[in-house]
Protein backbone atom coordinates (compact mmCIF):
# COMPACT_ATOMS: atom_id res chain seq x y z
CA UNK A 1 0.00 0.00 0.00
CA UNK A 2 2.65 2.48 1.10
CA UNK A 3 4.83 1.43 -1.76
CA UNK A 4 1.99 2.03 -4.17
CA UNK A 5 1.40 5.54 -2.88
CA UNK A 6 5.11 6.27 -2.94
CA UNK A 7 5.44 5.14 -6.51
CA UNK A 8 2.42 7.24 -7.45
CA UNK A 9 3.70 10.38 -5.83
CA UNK A 10 7.45 10.18 -6.13
CA UNK A 11 8.93 7.61 -8.48
CA UNK A 12 7.95 7.07 -11.25
CA UNK A 13 4.95 9.23 -10.49
CA UNK A 14 4.33 12.91 -9.95
CA UNK A 15 7.55 14.28 -8.51
CA UNK A 16 9.93 12.43 -10.79
CA UNK A 17 8.02 13.24 -13.94
CA UNK A 18 7.59 16.89 -13.11
CA UNK A 19 11.27 17.15 -12.34
CA UNK A 20 12.18 15.43 -15.59
CA UNK A 21 9.78 17.71 -17.42
CA UNK A 22 11.47 20.81 -16.08
CA UNK A 23 14.94 19.50 -16.81
CA UNK A 24 14.04 18.50 -20.34
CA UNK A 25 12.45 21.87 -20.99
CA UNK A 26 15.60 23.61 -19.86
CA UNK A 27 17.85 21.39 -22.00
CA UNK A 28 15.58 21.95 -24.94
CA UNK A 29 15.58 25.72 -24.57
CA UNK A 30 19.30 25.82 -24.02
CA UNK A 31 19.95 23.73 -27.11
CA UNK A 32 17.64 25.85 -29.19
CA UNK A 33 19.42 28.96 -27.95
CA UNK A 34 22.73 27.46 -28.92
CA UNK A 35 21.45 26.67 -32.40
CA UNK A 36 20.47 30.30 -32.67
CA UNK A 37 23.78 31.64 -31.39
CA UNK A 38 22.31 32.68 -28.10
CA UNK A 39 23.19 31.87 -24.53
CA UNK A 40 19.81 30.71 -23.35
CA UNK A 41 18.06 30.70 -20.00
CA UNK A 42 19.61 29.73 -16.67
CA UNK A 43 18.94 26.27 -15.26
CA UNK A 44 16.18 27.30 -12.88
CA UNK A 45 14.19 29.01 -15.61
CA UNK A 46 11.39 26.44 -16.13
CA UNK A 47 10.84 26.14 -12.39
CA UNK A 48 10.72 29.91 -12.03
CA UNK A 49 8.21 30.13 -14.84
CA UNK A 50 6.03 27.54 -13.23
CA UNK A 51 6.12 29.00 -9.74
CA UNK A 52 5.44 32.43 -11.14
CA UNK A 53 2.39 31.20 -13.02
CA UNK A 54 1.02 29.74 -9.79
CA UNK A 55 1.62 33.02 -8.01
CA UNK A 56 -0.35 35.04 -10.50
CA UNK A 57 -3.91 36.22 -10.46
CA UNK A 58 -6.39 33.94 -12.14
CA UNK A 59 -8.35 36.00 -14.61
CA UNK A 60 -11.17 34.58 -16.62
CA UNK A 61 -13.17 36.49 -19.16
CA UNK A 62 -16.91 36.68 -18.70
CA UNK A 63 -18.99 33.98 -20.31
CA UNK A 64 -16.71 30.97 -20.12
CA UNK A 65 -17.68 27.76 -18.39
CA UNK A 66 -15.65 28.08 -15.23
CA UNK A 67 -15.76 24.48 -14.15
CA UNK A 68 -14.74 23.19 -17.55
CA UNK A 69 -11.81 25.52 -17.75
CA UNK A 70 -10.60 24.42 -14.32
CA UNK A 71 -11.12 20.74 -14.93
CA UNK A 72 -9.57 20.45 -18.37
CA UNK A 73 -5.94 21.14 -17.46
CA UNK A 74 -6.27 18.96 -14.36
CA UNK A 75 -7.72 16.07 -16.29
CA UNK A 76 -5.08 16.23 -18.96
CA UNK A 77 -2.30 16.51 -16.42
CA UNK A 78 -3.50 13.48 -14.54
CA UNK A 79 -3.95 11.59 -17.79
CA UNK A 80 -0.36 12.07 -18.85
CA UNK A 81 0.89 11.35 -15.36
CA UNK A 82 -1.01 8.09 -15.39
CA UNK A 83 0.42 7.24 -18.76
CA UNK A 84 3.86 7.80 -17.33
CA UNK A 85 3.32 5.18 -14.66
CA UNK A 86 3.16 2.37 -17.18
CA UNK A 87 6.43 3.17 -18.86
CA UNK A 88 9.53 1.43 -17.60
CA UNK A 89 12.31 3.81 -16.66
CA UNK A 90 15.74 2.31 -17.23
CA UNK A 91 14.23 -1.14 -16.92
CA UNK A 92 12.40 -0.34 -13.69
CA UNK A 93 8.72 -1.09 -14.03
CA UNK A 94 6.18 -0.36 -11.36
CA UNK A 95 2.90 -0.95 -13.13
CA UNK A 96 2.65 -2.99 -16.24
CA UNK A 97 0.19 -5.28 -17.92
CA UNK A 98 -0.37 -6.73 -21.33
CA UNK A 99 -1.81 -4.04 -23.56
CA UNK A 100 -0.67 -0.98 -21.66
CA UNK A 101 0.70 0.50 -24.88
CA UNK A 102 -2.86 1.06 -26.04
CA UNK A 103 -3.79 2.64 -22.73
CA UNK A 104 -0.79 4.96 -22.92
CA UNK A 105 -1.80 5.96 -26.43
CA UNK A 106 -5.28 6.73 -25.27
CA UNK A 107 -4.12 8.68 -22.23
CA UNK A 108 -1.64 10.65 -24.29
CA UNK A 109 -4.46 11.79 -26.56
CA UNK A 110 -6.45 13.23 -23.68
CA UNK A 111 -4.54 16.54 -23.56
CA UNK A 112 -5.21 17.16 -27.23
CA UNK A 113 -8.91 16.59 -26.77
CA UNK A 114 -8.89 18.73 -23.64
CA UNK A 115 -7.04 21.40 -25.59
CA UNK A 116 -9.76 21.31 -28.21
CA UNK A 117 -12.50 21.53 -25.58
CA UNK A 118 -10.70 24.39 -23.85
CA UNK A 119 -10.73 26.28 -27.10
CA UNK A 120 -14.43 25.65 -27.67
CA UNK A 121 -15.41 26.50 -24.10
CA UNK A 122 -13.48 29.74 -24.18
CA UNK A 123 -15.00 32.93 -25.48
CA UNK A 124 -12.04 34.16 -27.45
CA UNK A 125 -12.03 33.83 -31.19
CA UNK A 126 -8.38 32.79 -31.25
CA UNK A 127 -9.03 30.04 -28.73
CA UNK A 128 -11.80 28.77 -30.93
CA UNK A 129 -9.56 28.77 -33.98
CA UNK A 130 -6.72 27.13 -32.09
CA UNK A 131 -9.01 24.42 -30.77
CA UNK A 132 -10.29 23.63 -34.24
CA UNK A 133 -6.77 23.53 -35.57
CA UNK A 134 -5.63 21.19 -32.82
CA UNK A 135 -8.25 18.63 -33.74
CA UNK A 136 -7.38 18.95 -37.43
CA UNK A 137 -3.75 18.40 -36.62
CA UNK A 138 -4.65 15.48 -34.37
CA UNK A 139 -6.27 13.66 -37.28
CA UNK A 140 -3.19 14.24 -39.39
CA UNK A 141 -0.53 12.82 -37.12
CA UNK A 142 -2.39 10.36 -34.91
CA UNK A 143 -3.03 7.66 -37.52
CA UNK A 144 0.57 7.36 -38.75
CA UNK A 145 1.76 7.52 -35.16
CA UNK A 146 -0.50 4.65 -34.13
CA UNK A 147 0.50 2.53 -37.08
CA UNK A 148 4.15 3.34 -36.52
CA UNK A 149 4.24 2.35 -32.88
CA UNK A 150 2.40 -0.85 -33.53
CA UNK A 151 5.56 -1.88 -35.40
CA UNK A 152 7.63 -2.62 -32.28
CA UNK A 153 4.62 -4.28 -30.68
CA UNK A 154 4.22 -6.66 -33.60
CA UNK A 155 7.91 -7.36 -33.64
CA UNK A 156 8.09 -8.12 -29.94
CA UNK A 157 4.85 -10.02 -30.02
CA UNK A 158 3.45 -8.10 -27.10
CA UNK A 159 1.40 -4.96 -26.44
CA UNK A 160 3.14 -4.19 -23.19
CA UNK A 161 5.84 -1.53 -23.18
CA UNK A 162 7.85 -3.40 -20.60
CA UNK A 163 7.75 -6.57 -22.71
CA UNK A 164 8.74 -4.67 -25.83
CA UNK A 165 11.77 -3.13 -24.17
CA UNK A 166 12.66 -6.54 -22.73
CA UNK A 167 12.46 -8.07 -26.17
CA UNK A 168 15.08 -5.64 -27.42
CA UNK A 169 17.62 -7.07 -25.01
CA UNK A 170 17.73 -10.11 -27.20
CA UNK A 171 17.01 -8.69 -30.64
CA UNK A 172 18.85 -5.37 -30.48
CA UNK A 173 17.25 -1.90 -30.65
CA UNK A 174 14.23 -1.82 -32.91
CA UNK A 175 15.36 1.44 -34.49
CA UNK A 176 17.77 -0.64 -36.57
CA UNK A 177 14.91 -2.61 -38.06
CA UNK A 178 12.43 0.21 -38.23
CA UNK A 179 14.20 3.50 -38.91
CA UNK A 180 11.21 4.73 -40.84
CA UNK A 181 8.85 3.87 -38.03
CA UNK A 182 11.07 5.73 -35.60
CA UNK A 183 11.05 8.89 -37.72
CA UNK A 184 7.29 8.69 -38.08
CA UNK A 185 6.93 8.25 -34.34
CA UNK A 186 9.10 11.32 -33.74
CA UNK A 187 6.94 13.33 -36.13
CA UNK A 188 3.87 12.08 -34.32
CA UNK A 189 5.37 13.02 -30.98
CA UNK A 190 6.17 16.53 -32.20
CA UNK A 191 2.59 16.82 -33.33
CA UNK A 192 1.32 15.60 -29.98
CA UNK A 193 3.44 18.05 -28.07
CA UNK A 194 2.48 20.88 -30.46
CA UNK A 195 6.14 21.66 -30.73
CA UNK A 196 7.74 23.89 -33.26
CA UNK A 197 7.34 22.66 -36.78
CA UNK A 198 3.89 21.32 -35.92
CA UNK A 199 2.79 24.12 -33.62
CA UNK A 200 -0.11 24.99 -35.89
CA UNK A 201 -2.70 25.13 -33.05
CA UNK A 202 -0.65 27.54 -30.98
CA UNK A 203 1.25 29.48 -33.65
CA UNK A 204 1.59 32.88 -32.08
CA UNK A 205 1.68 34.85 -35.31
CA UNK A 206 -1.53 33.27 -36.53
CA UNK A 207 -3.77 32.47 -33.59
CA UNK A 208 -1.97 34.33 -30.75
CA UNK A 209 -1.87 31.64 -28.07
CA UNK A 210 -4.18 29.01 -29.52
CA UNK A 211 -6.66 27.56 -27.07
CA UNK A 212 -4.67 28.90 -24.17
CA UNK A 213 -5.03 32.54 -25.20
CA UNK A 214 -7.53 33.27 -22.45
CA UNK A 215 -5.88 31.18 -19.76
CA UNK A 216 -3.84 32.80 -17.06
CA UNK A 217 -2.27 32.11 -13.71
CA UNK A 218 -2.45 28.65 -12.19
CA UNK A 219 -4.50 27.15 -15.01
CA UNK A 220 -1.90 28.13 -17.53
CA UNK A 221 0.67 26.67 -15.16
CA UNK A 222 -1.15 23.37 -15.19
CA UNK A 223 -1.26 23.42 -18.96
CA UNK A 224 2.43 24.11 -19.11
CA UNK A 225 3.08 21.27 -16.70
CA UNK A 226 0.92 18.99 -18.82
CA UNK A 227 2.97 19.79 -21.87
CA UNK A 228 6.21 19.18 -20.00
CA UNK A 229 5.11 15.87 -18.55
CA UNK A 230 3.70 14.84 -21.89
CA UNK A 231 7.08 15.47 -23.45
CA UNK A 232 8.75 13.35 -20.79
CA UNK A 233 6.29 10.50 -21.22
CA UNK A 234 6.57 10.66 -24.98
CA UNK A 235 10.35 10.63 -24.88
CA UNK A 236 10.43 7.75 -22.41
CA UNK A 237 7.94 5.84 -24.53
CA UNK A 238 9.92 6.22 -27.73
CA UNK A 239 13.16 5.36 -25.99
CA UNK A 240 11.58 2.19 -24.68
CA UNK A 241 9.95 1.28 -27.95
CA UNK A 242 12.77 1.94 -30.34
CA UNK A 243 16.12 2.48 -28.72
CA UNK A 244 16.19 -0.14 -25.98
CA UNK A 245 19.59 -1.00 -24.62
CA UNK A 246 22.00 -3.85 -24.74
CA UNK A 247 22.25 -6.49 -22.11
CA UNK A 248 24.21 -4.89 -19.34
CA UNK A 249 23.92 -6.17 -15.86
CA UNK A 250 25.26 -3.19 -13.99
CA UNK A 251 22.26 -0.99 -13.15
CA UNK A 252 24.30 2.20 -13.32
CA UNK A 253 25.29 1.58 -16.91
CA UNK A 254 21.69 0.92 -17.81
CA UNK A 255 20.58 4.17 -16.19
CA UNK A 256 23.40 6.00 -17.94
CA UNK A 257 22.45 4.63 -21.34
CA UNK A 258 18.81 5.42 -20.70
CA UNK A 259 19.62 9.03 -19.84
CA UNK A 260 21.86 9.33 -22.87
CA UNK A 261 19.09 8.09 -25.11
CA UNK A 262 16.64 10.51 -23.58
CA UNK A 263 19.04 13.38 -24.21
CA UNK A 264 19.41 12.22 -27.76
CA UNK A 265 15.66 12.41 -28.17
CA UNK A 266 15.61 15.95 -26.77
CA UNK A 267 18.34 16.86 -29.22
CA UNK A 268 16.31 15.45 -32.08
CA UNK A 269 13.22 17.36 -30.99
CA UNK A 270 14.95 20.71 -30.58
CA UNK A 271 16.91 20.21 -33.77
CA UNK A 272 13.66 19.64 -35.61
CA UNK A 273 12.17 22.81 -34.21
CA UNK A 274 15.27 24.77 -35.16
CA UNK A 275 15.44 23.58 -38.75
CA UNK A 276 11.90 23.25 -40.03
CA UNK A 277 9.32 25.93 -40.68
CA UNK A 278 5.75 25.66 -39.63
CA UNK A 279 3.49 24.01 -42.17
CA UNK A 280 0.13 25.23 -43.29
CA UNK A 281 -2.75 23.13 -42.01
CA UNK A 282 -3.65 21.89 -45.49
CA UNK A 283 -0.01 21.06 -46.14
CA UNK A 284 0.09 19.13 -42.88
CA UNK A 285 -3.06 17.17 -43.68
CA UNK A 286 -1.63 16.38 -47.11
CA UNK A 287 1.65 15.31 -45.57
CA UNK A 288 -0.08 13.19 -42.95
CA UNK A 289 -2.43 11.29 -45.20
CA UNK A 290 -0.54 11.18 -48.47
CA UNK A 291 2.98 10.51 -47.21
CA UNK A 292 3.12 9.51 -43.57
CA UNK A 293 0.26 7.00 -43.59
CA UNK A 294 1.51 5.04 -46.63
CA UNK A 295 5.01 5.08 -45.19
CA UNK A 296 3.86 3.78 -41.85
CA UNK A 297 1.84 1.07 -43.54
CA UNK A 298 4.91 0.14 -45.54
CA UNK A 299 6.92 -0.11 -42.35
CA UNK A 300 4.28 -2.21 -40.64
CA UNK A 301 4.09 -4.52 -43.64
CA UNK A 302 7.84 -4.87 -43.58
CA UNK A 303 7.77 -5.78 -39.90
CA UNK A 304 5.06 -8.36 -40.41
CA UNK A 305 6.90 -9.90 -43.34
CA UNK A 306 10.05 -10.07 -41.25
CA UNK A 307 8.19 -11.88 -38.51
CA UNK A 308 6.89 -14.46 -40.99
Amino acid sequence: MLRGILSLLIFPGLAFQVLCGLIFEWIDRKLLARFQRRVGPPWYQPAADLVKLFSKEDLMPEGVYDLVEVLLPLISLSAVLTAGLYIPIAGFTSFSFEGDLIVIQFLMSVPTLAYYLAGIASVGIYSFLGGGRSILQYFSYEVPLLIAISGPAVMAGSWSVAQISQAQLGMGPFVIFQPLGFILAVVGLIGKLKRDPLDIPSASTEVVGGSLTEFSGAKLGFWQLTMNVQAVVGIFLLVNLYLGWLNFTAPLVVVGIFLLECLLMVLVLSGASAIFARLRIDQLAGLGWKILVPLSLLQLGFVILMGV
Partner: protein
Amino acid sequence: MLKEMIKKTYRWAQKNSLWMIHYNTGGCNGCDIEILDLLTPRYDIERLGIITKASPRHADVLLCTGPVTLQAKDGLWQIYAQMPSPKWVVAVGSCSTTGAVFYGSDTVLGGVDHILPVDIYIPGCPVRPEGIIEGLVKLRERIAHGG
Protein backbone atom coordinates in the same frame (compact mmCIF):
# COMPACT_ATOMS: atom_id res chain seq x y z
CA MET B 1 6.98 31.87 8.78
CA LEU B 2 5.70 29.58 6.06
CA LYS B 3 3.77 32.45 4.58
CA GLU B 4 6.91 34.51 4.49
CA MET B 5 8.77 31.75 2.71
CA ILE B 6 6.05 31.31 0.12
CA LYS B 7 6.05 35.02 -0.48
CA LYS B 8 9.78 34.98 -0.93
CA THR B 9 9.63 32.09 -3.37
CA TYR B 10 6.93 33.82 -5.34
CA ARG B 11 9.00 36.98 -5.55
CA TRP B 12 12.02 35.04 -6.66
CA ALA B 13 9.98 33.36 -9.39
CA GLN B 14 8.37 36.59 -10.52
CA LYS B 15 11.70 38.27 -10.69
CA ASN B 16 13.26 35.51 -12.74
CA SER B 17 10.43 34.91 -15.11
CA LEU B 18 9.21 38.13 -16.62
CA TRP B 19 7.09 37.44 -19.65
CA MET B 20 6.78 40.61 -21.61
CA ILE B 21 4.27 41.93 -24.03
CA HIS B 22 5.09 44.85 -26.23
CA TYR B 23 2.68 47.49 -27.39
CA ASN B 24 3.50 50.34 -29.67
CA THR B 25 1.31 53.23 -28.64
CA GLY B 26 2.31 55.36 -31.57
CA GLY B 27 6.05 55.32 -31.71
CA CYS B 28 8.35 55.54 -34.66
CA ASN B 29 9.53 51.89 -34.78
CA GLY B 30 12.95 52.80 -33.47
CA CYS B 31 12.43 51.50 -29.95
CA ASP B 32 10.27 48.66 -31.23
CA ILE B 33 13.02 47.14 -33.31
CA GLU B 34 15.40 47.59 -30.43
CA ILE B 35 13.01 45.60 -28.25
CA LEU B 36 12.89 42.88 -30.89
CA ASP B 37 16.65 43.12 -30.96
CA LEU B 38 16.70 42.09 -27.33
CA LEU B 39 15.56 38.61 -28.33
CA THR B 40 18.25 38.17 -30.93
CA PRO B 41 21.68 36.66 -30.37
CA ARG B 42 23.62 39.73 -29.40
CA TYR B 43 21.42 40.83 -26.54
CA ASP B 44 19.69 37.52 -25.85
CA ILE B 45 17.35 38.53 -23.07
CA GLU B 46 16.30 34.96 -22.38
CA ARG B 47 19.34 34.94 -20.10
CA LEU B 48 17.23 36.94 -17.70
CA GLY B 49 14.25 34.68 -18.22
CA ILE B 50 12.43 37.28 -20.27
CA ILE B 51 10.51 36.05 -23.28
CA THR B 52 7.81 37.68 -25.34
CA LYS B 53 4.31 36.36 -25.08
CA ALA B 54 1.58 36.83 -27.61
CA SER B 55 -1.41 37.04 -25.32
CA PRO B 56 -1.72 39.73 -22.65
CA ARG B 57 -3.16 37.15 -20.28
CA HIS B 58 0.17 35.35 -20.16
CA ALA B 59 2.24 38.46 -19.68
CA ASP B 60 3.72 40.07 -16.59
CA VAL B 61 5.30 43.20 -17.92
CA LEU B 62 4.00 45.59 -20.55
CA LEU B 63 6.63 47.41 -22.58
CA CYS B 64 5.26 50.55 -24.14
CA THR B 65 6.98 52.48 -26.87
CA GLY B 66 6.07 55.78 -28.34
CA PRO B 67 3.86 58.63 -27.24
CA VAL B 68 0.26 57.71 -26.56
CA THR B 69 -1.86 58.79 -29.50
CA LEU B 70 -5.57 59.40 -29.10
CA GLN B 71 -6.40 56.29 -31.11
CA ALA B 72 -4.04 53.93 -29.36
CA LYS B 73 -5.21 54.99 -25.90
CA ASP B 74 -8.07 52.51 -25.63
CA GLY B 75 -6.01 49.62 -26.89
CA LEU B 76 -3.35 50.33 -24.32
CA TRP B 77 -5.85 50.35 -21.51
CA GLN B 78 -7.47 47.13 -22.75
CA ILE B 79 -4.18 45.29 -22.82
CA TYR B 80 -3.33 46.47 -19.35
CA ALA B 81 -6.73 45.39 -18.04
CA GLN B 82 -6.33 41.94 -19.55
CA MET B 83 -3.06 41.26 -17.81
CA PRO B 84 -3.32 39.31 -14.57
CA SER B 85 -1.74 40.95 -11.55
CA PRO B 86 0.95 41.32 -10.38
CA LYS B 87 1.85 43.29 -13.46
CA TRP B 88 4.30 45.99 -14.33
CA VAL B 89 4.59 48.64 -16.99
CA VAL B 90 7.82 49.84 -18.51
CA ALA B 91 7.94 52.98 -20.63
CA VAL B 92 10.66 52.53 -23.22
CA GLY B 93 12.08 55.62 -24.82
CA SER B 94 11.78 59.32 -24.28
CA CYS B 95 8.49 59.41 -26.20
CA SER B 96 6.65 57.09 -23.89
CA THR B 97 8.22 58.75 -20.88
CA THR B 98 7.21 62.30 -21.63
CA GLY B 99 6.20 62.63 -25.25
CA ALA B 100 9.61 64.06 -26.19
CA VAL B 101 9.77 65.26 -29.78
CA PHE B 102 6.00 65.09 -30.17
CA TYR B 103 5.21 67.63 -27.49
CA GLY B 104 2.42 69.97 -28.37
CA SER B 105 0.79 67.80 -31.00
CA ASP B 106 -3.00 67.74 -31.25
CA THR B 107 -3.19 63.99 -31.53
CA VAL B 108 -0.68 62.95 -28.91
CA LEU B 109 -1.58 62.73 -25.25
CA GLY B 110 1.99 62.51 -24.04
CA GLY B 111 3.70 59.88 -21.98
CA VAL B 112 2.30 56.51 -21.04
CA ASP B 113 1.85 57.66 -17.45
CA HIS B 114 -1.16 59.67 -18.58
CA ILE B 115 -2.98 56.37 -18.92
CA LEU B 116 -1.23 53.73 -16.83
CA PRO B 117 0.89 53.61 -13.72
CA VAL B 118 4.42 53.17 -14.98
CA ASP B 119 7.05 51.38 -12.91
CA ILE B 120 10.22 52.03 -14.85
CA TYR B 121 10.99 54.78 -17.31
CA ILE B 122 13.85 54.34 -19.76
CA PRO B 123 14.86 57.57 -21.49
CA GLY B 124 16.63 57.55 -24.80
CA CYS B 125 15.71 58.14 -28.41
CA PRO B 126 15.82 55.37 -29.41
CA VAL B 127 17.04 53.54 -26.38
CA ARG B 128 20.01 51.32 -26.92
CA PRO B 129 19.23 47.67 -26.14
CA GLU B 130 21.66 47.96 -23.25
CA GLY B 131 19.49 50.71 -21.88
CA ILE B 132 16.39 48.55 -22.06
CA ILE B 133 18.25 45.71 -20.37
CA GLU B 134 19.34 48.08 -17.65
CA GLY B 135 15.75 49.16 -17.13
CA LEU B 136 14.55 45.57 -16.93
CA VAL B 137 17.27 44.72 -14.43
CA LYS B 138 16.08 47.65 -12.35
CA LEU B 139 12.57 46.28 -12.57
CA ARG B 140 13.81 42.91 -11.36
CA GLU B 141 15.44 44.52 -8.36
CA ARG B 142 12.27 46.35 -7.62
CA ILE B 143 10.26 43.13 -7.73
CA ALA B 144 12.76 41.39 -5.49
CA HIS B 145 12.23 44.11 -2.93
CA GLY B 146 8.51 43.72 -3.17
CA GLY B 147 7.51 46.53 -5.50
